[in-house]
């Protein structure tokens, strides 16, 4: 026995001959490397398209961006057309969507996390929210058109558009707030109860402040989704006409994506409209970039680790 093991250890190379193994595995290793290359190329495909898209839009539109374009009114003459109305409309839309989704989204999250008993109602509301997240945005447009524009007779005004968009992005805020609230450790609220605080006092003074960074991140992401969505607003009848600048909730308005839409489909009539659309896309992408970076900064900087 002893002799056997020693001979084995001494002659190991004979049992595992690297060259033979290499030769036998060669085709499989080549296949592996080829596949690895293919997978890498696939990964880069998306990024290359992204780069082309951004390069294309910037090279086409950057020359059209100047102060007159940013502050001017809409015009049929491409050289004088400006997007101030769409910028103001976008701001007004945010002024409705932000408070409404915050109130509805955070309220729903608090109810689900703190008050609802884990039972039928809880799972029903929860399932409902994830279903709503999968409903195509255009269906929300139909809902908004039927209820806010026609039944409540608001017309295509800021309030109707804002409420429609709020319902559309509500699931994002609810899910983000739920996660933020769930991440607040129990001992914080237990300490609060121990001091004699009531449930609502605990939620208001302890849980919500601790969950605020997560909630804000979700709220900002929902805002950036709301100002990038086009279909629901077109369905509820937001025009890109020569209308006065919006100054209140009951004013008609237009927003950047809708402006891009009308200029893109009219580009076959007036070629310059395509450049205007590209310039507007640059403005929209910059706004989205700022919003999303803010969300990332809040998440990284203020997210407390307990």
């Amino acid at each position, binding site marked *: 026995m002893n002799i056997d093991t020693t001979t084995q250890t001494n002659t190991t190379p004979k049992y595992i001959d690297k060259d033979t193994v290499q030769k036998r*595995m060669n085709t*499989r290793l080549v296949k*592996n490397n080829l596949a*690895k290359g293919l*997978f*890498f190329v*696939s*990964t880069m*495909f*998306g*990024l290359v*398209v*992204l780069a082309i*898209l951004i390069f294309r*839009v910037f090279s086409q539109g950057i020359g059209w961006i100047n102060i007159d374009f940013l502050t001017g009114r809409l015009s049929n003459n491409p050289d004088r057309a400006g997007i101030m109305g769409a910028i103001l409309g976008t701001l007004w839309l945010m002024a409705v969507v932000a408070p409404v989704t915050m109130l*509805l989204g955070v*309220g*729903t999250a608090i*109810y*689900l996390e703190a*008050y*609802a008993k884990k039972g039928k109602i809880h799972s029903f*509301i929860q399932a*409902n*929210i*994830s*279903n*709503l997240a*999968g*409903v*195509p*945005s*255009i*269906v*929300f447009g*139909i*809902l908004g*058109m*039927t*209820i806010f524009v026609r039944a409540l007779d608001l017309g295509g005004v800021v309030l109707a558009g804002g409420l429609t968009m709020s319902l559309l992005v*509500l699931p994002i805020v*609810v899910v983000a707030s739920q996660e933020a609230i769930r991440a607040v450790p129990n001992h914080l609220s237990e300490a609060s109860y121990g001091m004699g605080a*009531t*449930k609502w*006092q605990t939620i208001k003074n302890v849980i919500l402040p601790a969950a605020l960074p997560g909630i804000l991140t979700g709220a900002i992401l929902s805002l950036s989704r709301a100002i*990038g*969505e*086009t*279909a629901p607003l*077109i*369905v509820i*009848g937001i025009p890109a006409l020569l209308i006065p600048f919006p100054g209140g909730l009951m004013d008609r308005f237009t927003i950047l994506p809708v402006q*891009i*839409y009308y200029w*893109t489909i009219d*580009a*076959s009539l007036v070629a310059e409209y395509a450049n205007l*659309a590209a310039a507007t*896309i640059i403005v929209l992408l910059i706004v989205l970039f700022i919003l*999303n970076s803010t969300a990332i900064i809040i998440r990284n900087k203020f997210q407390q680790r307990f």
Partner: protein
Amino acid sequence: MDVNSEMNKGNAVNVRKMIEQKKSSRNLNNLIEKVMPKLLFVIASISILTTVGILYTLLSETFEFFQRVPIVDFFTGTVLRPLSQDPQFGVLPLLTGTIISSVIAMFVAIPIGLMTAIFLSEYASDKVRRTLKPMLEILAGIPTIVYGFFAFTFVTPILRDIIPGLQATNILSPGIVMGIMIIPMVASLSEDAMSSVPRAMREGALALGATRLEVTGKVVIPAAISGIIASFVLGISRAIGETMIVTIASGSTKNFTFDITQSMQTMTAYIVEVTGGDAPAGSTIYYSLYAVAMTLFVFTFLMNLLARYISRRFREEY
């Protein structure tokens, strides 16, 4: 606060006064404690109200539509001519448009998305994954209107150089661009499914001499198959509901054809066209909007249910 400041002044703590104060605020606190859960419940039910609202508006108006147009004609009709003297409301042209554009999109999104997921989960180092994944997610954050513009002004002209006979508006270009838009979704969901496969299973296979490719193909993908398929189904659902890319780039011709070089209209694009064209409330074309939206809703709803069923039913527990 009052109590605190009095204490700070050095006055003796007046317990009786504190109790009085507590009593006077207790009623208000009790009220808040009772009202808040109810108020929050009302807020939470808004999501349910939204669903009910969607179902109610779609169902009631669709019902009205089927009073005027027989349901069989709607689902088997191959001609959609809502504006002609003798209007016909067959949904099949829209259905084929929707299905063909989604199929094209999935031909792009499924292979590339899956291979991207495999690269990120199985081959890429931690550092590479952490740089590439957020960059890919930018793709998902770009508004669909921008993709529509890209498809119409960039992809279509290129494709027309390659494929002779391609129409200025066609279903191929928006299908491809839609697929690119869906890549990050398929990739990120599949990657999640694949990276939740335990390391021990990979290491076992590697120790037996399997290459990474064999580990991926014979261990990781079979173990993560439910999550991967769910990501495909969600991708299809997303493609069916996508609106702006097809509205801009696939035109408004209600063609009943399977020729991808032709202009076709999808369900979503039809809705945009009809609402943009000021369909007078009460006309048949106005109600057709709801019938189409209902069909769209049912399609995507079933897809989403299916995705959730697959990922739950076939999830393997380790």
